[in-house]
């Protein structure tokens, strides 16, 4: 089982090269850059755009807003998952809400949200709404998976809840949090960009994508898409690295806790 999971995730350079070659061959075969640009043309265009100041302005505009939405969703998920773990009524109250948010298409959210907030901050709200149920669900699953025998031990020894959170729950939750953060980050980028393409806030990556579509600038479209993928994967990897450091740090602190 483990073997198949790791093989599914394995990323081999030869496979990437193979698909790039397939893309290049397809572009040559179509021979119409408006329909399909070659990978070389897309990368060439990306290097051109890297030197344009508005490129970086758009990147910071979108990156800042999506990360803000993501950060807020994480904060809310932390607060509500701990509260829902302690209070069954809150868990029951939030259950239909999170299920509904998960089921509603992003486009419906975006159109509805445009009535409430300016298009400038739309991606913050959408990232928050899309990221929250994933993070909340994962954190709650992590808390639920905590060994009940350890919780009983904590009850008998009257260990305060905040210390229980730190010493008992943290270890159970971190792996769940890690996978939740990774999934939520990807979803926040996808939904945040979708929101920008619909809301077209000035100076965003979404606006650039929309403009590329309107003027049939396929090379720009591919280039911005590549940029979004790189940003999304980069954020995800950075976050995973951060959580891994946190896990190691927590384990190290546990190992030398006597000196605390």
């Amino acid at each position, binding site marked *: 089982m483990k073997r198949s999971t790791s093989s599914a995730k394995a990323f081999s350079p030869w496979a990437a090269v193979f698909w790039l070659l397939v893309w290049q061959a397809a572009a040559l075969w179509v021979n119409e850059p408006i329909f399909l640009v070659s990978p070389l043309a897309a990368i060439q265009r990306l290097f051109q755009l890297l030197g344009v100041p508005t490129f970086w302005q758009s990147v910071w505009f979108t990156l800042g807003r999506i990360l803000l939405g993501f950060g807020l969703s994480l904060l809310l998920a932390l607060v509500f998952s701990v509260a829902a773990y302690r209070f069954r009524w809150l868990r029951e109250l939030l259950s239909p809400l999170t299920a509904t948010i998960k089921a509603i298409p992003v486009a419906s959210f975006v159109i509805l949200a445009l009535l409430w907030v300016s298009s400038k901050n739309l991606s913050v709200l959408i990232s928050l709404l899309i990221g929250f149920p994933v993070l909340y669900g994962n954190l709650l699953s992590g808390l639920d998976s905590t060994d009940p*025998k*350890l919780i*009983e*031990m*904590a*009850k*008998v*020894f*009257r*260990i305060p809840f905040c*210390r229980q959170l730190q*010493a*008992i729950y943290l*270890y159970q939750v971190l792996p769940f949090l890690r996978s939740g953060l990774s999934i939520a980050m990807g979803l926040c980028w996808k939904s945040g960009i979708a929101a920008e393409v619909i809301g077209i806030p000035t100076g965003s990556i979404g606006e650039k994508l929309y403009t590329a579509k309107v003027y049939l600038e396929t090379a720009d479209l591919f280039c911005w898409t590549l940029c979004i993928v790189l940003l999304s994967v980069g954020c995800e990897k950075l976050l995973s690295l951060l959580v891994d450091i946190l896990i190691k740090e927590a*384990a190290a602190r*546990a*190992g*030398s*806790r*006597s*000196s605390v």
Partner: protein
Amino acid sequence: MLEAVHLSKSFDGKPIIVDFSQRLETGVHYCLMGPSGCGKTTLLRLLMGLLQPDAGEVRGSSKMSAVFQENRLLEPFNAIANVELATGASRGEIERLLMELGLEKESLFQPVSAFSGGMKRRVALARALLAEYDALFLDEPFKGLDDETKARVMRIVSERTKGKTVLLVTHDETETLGFQPISL
């Protein structure tokens, strides 16, 4: 003082504890003996408030401490951290007791996940003995200890629990420590 009054508990319709009453006086050490599966652990859990009885009640409230049937340690934490978390005892005090129980000083700083069953049991015992308590519940506390270590640990338990209420559960006649016997 803790008092079980007409306690009954069933699981899946099978009665495990039936109309059990017993006063646990302050400062008295009790020993509950019986074969495996007779309900000893269930009774301990009822007395500790970890299970709700089907009938009857547990009267009197007191600070409790316990050695559970399982060690219930935080595996990534070292021995001192495990004891410290539950007791608030000083590091020196914890170190002294753990070493008195036969653990090597170097091992105290290793995660307990690397410990043998007997070592883990002694960490669980140290945690129970150093916690602030009025009533101490010991569920097969000497399980997994070799004879020599067991003798040393039994002596320490007897010494350190003077003046406290203790309920020891065992199925081994050699582990009763001369405590006052009670039966289910």
